């Protein structure tokens, strides 16, 4: 692209100017944003696919609107996100289950928080990521902080009008559009000659492994009470 790119991977610095202040406008329906310029969806999708296929540690950050199965559309979208993840070589999924600042801190391998998304990105050395199912306000906060302090290539699959501060921003993205993006990605992958058998990304590292030596009473759910010593009961030996 000979034209000047307005929105590029950072680090943009201490306090970067938001895209909207630089004159970036949200795309009309049917169009997309690529480096802050309005382009055809196909063009933006190809560039996004290339970033996810060629940059280090590509990661999908699903937000609450796909993580929680609050309606049929959300569940369908979640399915599509998984299908997309399967096609990206060595992709990871790190969820953003909610938006509150967390005390005392988050586990950057297990989740991403909109109040300090750069911690997760820097910890995992993520250089390309996709935001999907995050409410626009919080996505914008995150995208701006990521551009400020990291070299991550950000892609926003927005269900509404899009995001100025992502390098690639598609709008009106639901399950069907995610699948269309997946097809484009597979096509670009084949063009680049990358061989990959579709498979699901690794599971969340915070989840308990099936290791029965370190079991907690919580693992017994409603039967946990049975494990607790009763009043006056002294457990001296166990099987």
């Amino acid at each position, binding site marked *: 692209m000979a034209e000047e790119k307005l929105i590029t991977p950072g680090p943009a610095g201490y306090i970067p100017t938001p895209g909207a202040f630089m004159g970036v406008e949200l795309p009309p329906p049917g169009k997309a944003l690529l480096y802050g310029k309005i382009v055809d969806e196909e063009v933006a999708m190809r560039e996004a696919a290339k970033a996810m296929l060629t940059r280090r540690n590509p990661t999908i950050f*699903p937000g609450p609107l*796909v*993580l*929680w*199965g*609050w*309606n049929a559309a*959300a*569940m369908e979208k*979640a*399915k599509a996100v*998984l299908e997309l993840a399967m096609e990206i070589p060595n992709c990871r*999924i*790190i*969820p953003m*289950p909610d938006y*509150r*600042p*967390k*005390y*005392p801190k988050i*586990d950057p391998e*297990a*989740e991403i928080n909109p109040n300090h998304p750069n911690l997760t990105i820097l910890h995992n050395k993520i250089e390309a990521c996709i935001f999907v199912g995050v409410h626009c306000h919080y996505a914008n906060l995150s995208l701006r902080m990521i551009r400020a302090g990291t070299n991550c290539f950000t892609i926003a699959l927005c269900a509404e009008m899009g995001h100025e501060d992502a390098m690639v921003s598609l709008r009106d993205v639901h399950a069907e559009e995610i699948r269309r993006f997946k097809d484009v990605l597979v096509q670009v992958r084949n063009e680049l000659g990358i061989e990959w058998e579709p498979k699901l*990304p690794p*599971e*969340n590292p*915070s*989840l*308990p492994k099936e290791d029965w030596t370190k079991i907690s*009473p*919580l693992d017994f*759910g*409603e039967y*946990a*009470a049975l494990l*607790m010593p009763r009043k006056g009961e002294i457990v001296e030996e166990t099987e």
Partner: protein
Amino acid sequence: MGLEYVRISPGFERYMPRDYVDLVKFGQFGKQVDVMQLGQFKELVEEHPMCAGCYMAYFIRVFYAALPNPEDTIVLGTAGCARLALSQAAVPFIYGNYGDTNAVASGLKRALTIRFPDKVKDVVVIAGDGGLMDIGFGMTMHSWFRGEKFTTIMVDNEVYGNTGGQESGMSPKGVQLKMAPLGKKFDKINAVELAQVAGCVYVARISPTNPKRIAKVIRRAIYAAREFGPTFIHAYTSCNIEYSIPTREVLKDAREREKKDFKFYEWMTDEVKEYLEEIERKEKEKAKQEVK
């Protein structure tokens, strides 16, 4: 809406952090838990930044365990200590401006009533003595005068704890605190009596020494607010920092205050009494059947 919004999308169970998986599997959503079993289920609030030995933190823990309908409850707070824990809970929380809780709750409850006339949506304010009886006094009173249907819980630590220990209207007379360098010159405000006069249909004062009783009072206040009008709980939740109570003696202090000015007190209108008796009778029957 029920449980749909706290259900993990199929396929994503293996990508959620453990915290959330536990919340769904072993948490309180869609169930009634017994507060005596605290520690045996995934609580709605766990990690929080309140001081060691804080009795307010304990009260809030019991509060969340006592919620009759956590998946359809909204909690409001304001500046002060309580919101440090409230904002960490798995229940939607609104933090507005200084002392605005009861005005925000009025608007919120009305909006929910317009939008969901046939659903139960519990709105609960938990704010401190400063938030409700000083800066937010007018809004607290007027929400009661108007008969707004939500619960107000005052976690009274008798001091502005979060801003560094200043006198509040609820501090006892004579106590020397910041901004009262010669000791407080007037009496503790009688919040319970005010609530009764202002139109609350259920009023309680407790020193939280007995978790079962805390839970019972909270559930009664929430049930009564659904049908009849404003309800109010005045809870003593000492500030062990500003009042220099040794951590292991906070319970002892609560018991002592219970014998003096925080005697358990409960008042309700006749119709509320009838209504609660009916609910509690049904709950007991249900519990009996489950045992069988």
